[in-house]
């Protein structure tokens, strides 16, 4: 027997990879090395890949997560223009690595066997690590990259060990065959448990779940803002998608092994993330910790993947989460570029004196908090709690509820800071260069999307699986 190539998945990924190469080439041969030069092919590739994805016959969870990955990548690419003429960032390599990682993300979601999954995971990881360390001459960046790298490879090793055991137990690494093989009562339970848990570790690591979250604040803090946005949105979405597919297709028979683990990890993750975020004084740090917390919410439906609500809920939640997070990170990237600081004290009153950036940031924070008027955030909170309840994990649902509250505590702090009467000298927004306007436009488009979705959540909820 042979394993055919699934082009519904490989197609967009290939396009993205080609885009990555073209970007690298353009950069290499285009003398001025501007951000737009290599960004354009990347953007085109992103658009074409999205079109290909929509045109193709991918459905369900892979489609939803691929869409989130592609749209998120496009968002990052366009918003990254904010870094134009930042000497530390080589645009060609940046776009190449970014698009490679995006291709990895796509392949991860589309993987139908563990081999592909592992390789795709690396295709996502290694460029991401490079991206984190890309700010040349920046000690924080390279330290962050080192941290990220080492923890990443260790978790990869653990995952591979799990995979090898899984293979040893079943003799196959194809999802469908695995699913069937594990039903066999003859498979040794203990080994399966160890194998499954170790396999899942790699994906939980990419998601930044506790106790594999320690790299997250460091990496987000050291990386340039849009890379952090990429990690928090695209990379997470892909990992979650892969995790869901793996759990629901390959490992349902081992449900008893991973279900309590994933549930407890979800609960711990959201709690630790929220508590950690409470004391942050920098908006980036706050978002970093908050994305740890959000990872907990993302993982929660994975614990109850047997519920019919789980897969759509995860997709819908991750879509809204990614959008809001990207809006927030992009806005902060612009702010960092124009003001040189993202400390909360320096953001005071931004919604008043710089409404075009402040208000989207408010909207994004409210969405992440799940608080009206960002109805879509609230609705997706509802959506994500529903499968948990449906899967008889009411205790987890209650912890989620408590964490919604904990999250509100700091998101609203951000909101309130932004809406505060500004102190000191009135801030005069400098007339930004065109590249910054690109980034701003992404922020506004993203915020507008959030507003539209808030007004009519059905747009998202009915059309994503």
């Amino acid at each position, binding site marked *: 027997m042979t394993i055919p190539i699934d082009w519904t998945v490989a197609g967009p990924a290939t396009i993205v990879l080609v885009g990555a190469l073209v970007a690298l080439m353009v950069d290499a041969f285009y003398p001025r090395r501007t951000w737009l030069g290599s960004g354009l092919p990347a953007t085109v590739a992103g658009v074409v890949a999205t079109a290909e994805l929509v045109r193709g016959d991918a459905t369900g969870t892979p489609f939803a997560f691929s869409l989130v990955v592609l749209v998120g990548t496009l968002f990052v690419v366009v918003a990254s223009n904010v870094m134009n003429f930042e000497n530390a960032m080589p645009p060609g390599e940046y776009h190449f690595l970014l698009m490679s990682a995006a291709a990895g993300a796509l392949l991860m979601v589309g993987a139908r066997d563990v081999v592909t999954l592992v390789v795709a995971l690396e295709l996502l990881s290694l460029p991401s690590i490079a991206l984190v360390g890309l700010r040349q001459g920046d000690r924080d960046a390279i330290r962050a990259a080192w941290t990220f790298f080492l923890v990443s490879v260790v978790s990869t090793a653990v995952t591979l060990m799990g995979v090898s055991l899984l293979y040893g137990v079943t003799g196959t690494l194809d999802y469908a065959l695995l699913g069937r093989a594990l039903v066999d009562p003859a498979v040794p339970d203990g080994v399966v448990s160890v194998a499954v848990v170790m396999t899942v570790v790699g994906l939980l690591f990419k998601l930044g779940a506790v106790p594999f979250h320690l790299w997250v604040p460091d990496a987000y803090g050291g990386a340039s803002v849009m890379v952090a946005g990429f990690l928090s949105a695209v990379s997470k979405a892909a990992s979650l998608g892969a995790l869901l597919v793996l759990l629901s297709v390959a490992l349902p028979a081992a449900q008893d092994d991973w279900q309590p683990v994933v549930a407890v990890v979800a609960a711990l993750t959201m709690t630790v993330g929220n508590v950690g975020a409470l004391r942050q004084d920098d908006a980036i740090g706050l978002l970093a910790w908050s994305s740890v917390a959000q990872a907990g919410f993302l993982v929660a439906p994975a614990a109850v993947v047997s519920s019919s609500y789980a897969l759509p809920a995860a997709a819908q939640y991750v879509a809204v989460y990614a959008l809001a997070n990207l809006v927030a990170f992009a806005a902060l990237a612009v702010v960092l570029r124009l003001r040189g600081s993202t400390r909360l004290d320096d953001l005071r009153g931004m919604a008043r004196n710089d409404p075009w950036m402040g208000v989207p940031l408010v909207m994004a924070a409210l969405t992440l908090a799940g608080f009206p008027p960002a109805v879509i955030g609230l*609705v997706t909170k509802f959506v994500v709690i529903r499968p948990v309840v449906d899967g008889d994990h009411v205790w987890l649902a209650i912890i989620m509820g408590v964490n919604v*509250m904990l999250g509100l505590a700091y998101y609203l702090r951000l909101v309130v800071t932004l809406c505060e009467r500004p102190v000191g000298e009135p801030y005069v927004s400098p007339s930004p260069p065109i590249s910054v306007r690109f980034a701003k436009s992404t922020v506004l488009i993203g915020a507008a999307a959030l507003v539209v979705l808030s007004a009519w959540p*059905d747009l998202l*909820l009915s059309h994503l699986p």
Partner: protein
Amino acid sequence: MIVAALAVPFVVGLLLVLGRRFVSGRAAAWIGVAATTVSLVLVAAVWEGREGVSGEVDVAWIEPVGARLHLGLTAVSWPFALMTAFIAVLCCLWLVADDTSPALVGLVLVIGASALGVFGSLDALLLFVFFELALVPMWFVIAWWSDADRDVAHRAATRFLLFTVTGSALLLVGIVVAAVEGGSLELTALRPTAVAIVLITLGFAVKTPVVPLHTWLPDAHSSAPTVGSVLLASVFLKLGTYGLIVFVLPSDHLGVVAPYLAVAGSVGIVWSALACYAQDDLKRLIAYSSIGHMGFVVLAISTRSEAGLAAAVFGSVAHGVITGLLFFAAGSMKDRYGTTSMAGIGRGLYGRAPWLAATFVLAAVASLGLPGLAGFWGEVLSLRAAYDVGSVLTRPVAWTALGLALVGIALTTAYVVRAVRLLAQGEPSALEADRDLGRREVVVMGALVAVVVVLGLVPQLLLDLYGPVYVGVAR
């Protein structure tokens, strides 16, 4: 019509917030009065009778989760909605002054509209959205327009917000559980399990507030500006009691929480009365008294009986108008003397500002539940419901609660008499700021006094909604 009743104040409020630089405060307040009056008229006009749903609007909203834009007023929600719209009108009227900030008027409108939305929602998710929608505006109202020190106001506002969102987060989980169990988000279709009932009860109990979840209330009330206090007391606390009535009272699992509710409610009556007795700050006193009144409502709800339902609704509405009146009176004093400390205001208000004093005393005695004024009927029906035990409590629990409630009523009289004695009576200590009610104050307070008296003398206006032929209106 009901959509317009929500949308008009909401949109006008948003426009006022956004366009705050383009209108004067006085004009904004008049605009607000107009918008809320429209809303009030619409809410009143939409009524079609106690059987069924008035002004029903049912549009698809979020198909995948089964949420619908389902609005309509029932025999339970209509009084709440009417009271809210009425209070909103008065709040806007109160703001008709030169030093008003247009944004404050806008926020008041938004808050009022959101509360109306809660009462008008027949879909749990929609209700929850409205429930949360008002919180952030309320934070700003408390934190920014407070007369208190900035840090104090911030802390009070944040406490208020965090308490409430803690409750509402649990509430959300409870709603999800109920919705999964019932297969729909329609209020009538929810099937809360025991766990869900506990969660939902906790959520609304924070808002109501039920002792010992009440500690946010005094701070918030005493820090808020006058309209903020009025909205908090008259409208926000009602969100809690309304939620309890709608979600918890009809549930089969009420018995799980009922004993705790009954005891907590009645302990709250005594506790708050004692706390009131030691207050010097008038607004704190009124805040604590609210806890006691809500205790009666909670006690009534815990019994689940016809009388209990009537008591809960009547008690809530009556508390809304009476406490609104009290806060307006306290606000008048604050406007004059810059403080709500009874020591600071001084004694002998009867002589210094007779009408203000008379209004305050009337509100105070209404608050202590004098028969013939609005506050009485809710209390007496609660007592009756507790005496009757109802369908879920046991007699020892119900009668213990009854006994505590009686003690609380006596203590209530004590602190009201003390307040009147300290404030209205005594050798007048004339201050320069002494001045009797102005026209604006007369209008606002007069309207409330009229409602208090009318509801007191003709309780049938409300109680007829819950007469014997009509059981189960909470559904």
